[in-house]
């Protein structure tokens, strides 16, 4: 979406930039056309002015020595002005041909001025004066004809140029009007596209949120792309997670109810069982009891004891004790378990059951935890591992502190028969067991205790056979905070 917005804004900017450039260009072209026209008209005016000036001088010549003769200063000024006009023409840029024409005009003007100077200064007999005046007048007439011809030609050309320029300016004006009218429409269209692109996904997400709020956990957002697509994926994942959590919560609530019922039932069963146990002990000490009956009574006593143990574990699961935190080192605890509990079962490499222990205990800092509960967890896992290897195998214990985090990792593995993926999720559920005489509460209690410590436990089958339990415990300082 971000890319689309950037792309859209770029397109928008480019469109308006191009339009702006075009407008500036057309204005400049039109201005240049007008400038050229003004210059051409100025040149035309200059030529007309030049012609008028020559005609004025010719009139001065005609009026000379009459009662209407103008003063010397006036005539002189008219002649100087005529010269200035032709000099001004050279200030403008001309083509080579134009410059040559101007040079010729200037040469003729100079000749005319020389004749005029002569007429103004000479004092002679009338015939000589008349001849001089006539000579100058003739030069003036030739000049007049030449300039008039130039004016006729250029006026005709100027008309054509003016017409073309005006047509171009008219076209430019129409295009500018079109742009002025089209600009807001294009802006509105582009704005509609951009706003639709933003509001449609938001609307879809809003509707999905409402459906989720309404309890439709099966609803999923589809059809969105880019960043909104990613948001939709997250939304869908959230919905999935929400559904799972809901189911888990329902299950947990059910389990809590069942557990409370079972705990109450267990408590009620425990007292009669104590009575049965005492009665069986008393009965087994009866002297008149045959050996066969004594065996039955003893068997009943053993089963009652097993029921008591089961009840005790069940009550521990349903009403777990609050952890009693103290500073301990996980490695020390594991070493103690391996030393006392495992060796107490008389297992060692070389024995017929052939259990080998592989330890890889990386140095760990001390952490706050309940030593009794951790001992219960580790012992439960170790014993399960040993049970999983009746024919011998390798018991692996590994600890390490994850680099860059505050998690202590404990891995307990065996090389036993392993665990299926299906059972990997179920083994932490209460009363799930694969052992003939198991209660199915050991791993459930272990996970419960680990979670009380803020940790987690998972079980996975190893590709080479066997199972590995991975525990993660947060490293906690004596002050009570996570390290």
């Amino acid at each position, binding site marked *: 979406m971000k890319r689309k917005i950037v792309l859209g804004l770029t397109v928008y900017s480019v469109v308006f930039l191009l339009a702006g450039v075009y407008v500036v260009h057309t204005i400049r072209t039109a201005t240049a056309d007008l400038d050229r026209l003004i210059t051409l008209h100025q040149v035309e005016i200059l030529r007309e002015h030049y012609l008028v000036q020559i005609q004025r001088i010719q009139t001065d010549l005609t009026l000379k020595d009459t009662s209407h003769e103008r003063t*010397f200063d006036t005539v002189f000024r008219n002649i*100087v002005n005529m010269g200035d006009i032709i000099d001004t023409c050279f200030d403008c840029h001309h083509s080579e041909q134009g410059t040559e024409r101007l040079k010729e005009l200037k040469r003729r003007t100079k000749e005319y*001025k020389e004749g005029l*100077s*002569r007429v*103004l*200064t*000479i004092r*002679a007999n009338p015939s000589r004066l008349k001849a001089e005046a006539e000579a100058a007048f003739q030069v003036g007439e030739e000049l007049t004809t030449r300039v008039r011809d130039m004016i006729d030609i250029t006026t005709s050309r100027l008309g054509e140029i003016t017409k073309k320029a005006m047509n171009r300016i008219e076209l430019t004006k129409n295009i500018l009007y079109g742009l002025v009218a089209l600009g807001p429409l294009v802006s509105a269209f582009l704005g509609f596209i951009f706003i639709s692109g933003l509001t449609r996904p938001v609307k879809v997400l809003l509707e999905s949120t409402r459906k989720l709020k309404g309890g439709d956990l099966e609803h999923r957002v589809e059809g969105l792309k880019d960043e909104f697509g990613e948001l939709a994926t997250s939304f869908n994942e959230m919905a999935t997670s929400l559904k799972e959590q809901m189911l888990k919560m329902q299950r947990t609530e059910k389990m809590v109810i069942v557990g409370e019922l079972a705990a109450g039932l267990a408590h009620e069963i425990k007292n009669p069982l104590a009575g049965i146990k005492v009665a069986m002990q008393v009965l087994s000490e009866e002297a008149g009891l045959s050996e066969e009956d004594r065996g039955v009574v003893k068997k009943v006593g053993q089963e009652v004891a097993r029921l008591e143990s089961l009840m005790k574990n069940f009550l521990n699961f349903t009403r777990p004790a609050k952890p009693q935190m103290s500073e301990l080192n996980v490695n020390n605890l594991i070493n103690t378990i391996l030393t006392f509990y495992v060796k107490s079962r008389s297992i060692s490499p070389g024995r017929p059951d052939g259990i080998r222990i592989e330890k890889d205990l990386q140095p760990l800092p001390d952490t706050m935890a309940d030593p009794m509960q951790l001992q219960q967890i580790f012992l439960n896992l170790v014993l399960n591992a040993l049970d999983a290897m009746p024919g011998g195998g390798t018991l692996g214990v590994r600890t390490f502190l994850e680099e860059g985090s505050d998690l202590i990792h404990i891995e307990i593995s065996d090389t036993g028969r392993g665990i299926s993926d299906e059972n990997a999720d179920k083994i932490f559920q209460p009363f799930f067991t694969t052992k003939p005489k198991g209660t199915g509460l050991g791993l459930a209690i272990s996970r419960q205790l680990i979670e009380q410590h803020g940790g987690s436990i998972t079980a996975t089958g190893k590709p080479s056979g066997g199972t590995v339990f991975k525990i993660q415990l947060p490293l906690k300082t004596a002050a009570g905070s996570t390290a």
Partner: protein
Amino acid sequence: MCLLAVSGCSREEKPSQAKVPPREQFLIGLIPELNIFKQLERYEPMAGYLSGKTGLRVTLKIFPRYGNIIDNFRLAGMDGAFFGSFAYALAHAKLGVEVLARPLALDNASTYHGLIFVRKDSGIKTFRDMKGKRFAFVDKATTAYLLTRAYFHSHGISNCKVYLGECYFAGTHEDVVFDVLNNKADIGAAKNTVFNRLAKADPRIANELVILEKSPEVPENGLALRKEIDESLRIRMRDTLLNMHLDPEGKKVLEQFGAQKFIETANADYAIVVKYAEEIHQNLATYDYIND
């Protein structure tokens, strides 16, 4: 539109510029030594330079005839003029103008002389050959005219107009030279500086014309001011002219003008002109300089 509006709104009234008092005009007259337009163009850079250096608004006014400058000097409100030698002698005698300075030409000449010349093929060699011929003068108020008068006077002819076939005043030295060259006149009288300058540009002049007579050397055209001019202004104007060649800008103007520098000039320098006039019995105070 916004920009126009902003620019329109932000436009500030410019404070009215402080009025600079107009510069005092200093009017200088010119005689038609050359074609009047050419003459004006020749002196314009000089006027510009003097304006810049003196703080005055130096303006030029050209007259169509030498005599006009004397007649109209006061009427036209002239402050000064570049006079030819004889015209100065007349103006000094009639108006009391005082000369300040004159140019020193590139060839180190600060004087000129009048010439009488004819076409080589005209067959005119002496005054006798001139009888009944067409004579082109510049003006009565020129040294060249004085030379002609002296020339005929020396040959016992008191009224040359009767002796010659036609006398006319072309008005400029340039026109006289070209009239003789182009056979509009048989004889001409003009100043040597203009004759030589034209000869450089047109080889026909040296090849086809021949000089018959020369006048004595007289001072080149100098600037003379009216006698009422304030002394401090007179000194300022004189010093500006005399120091022009020391200033790069002034030197450039002088080069355009065709001079090295200006040299100081006094009435005494014109004694030769006065003496020359007296020799032919011309009273400067009563001399009739009107071209008829």
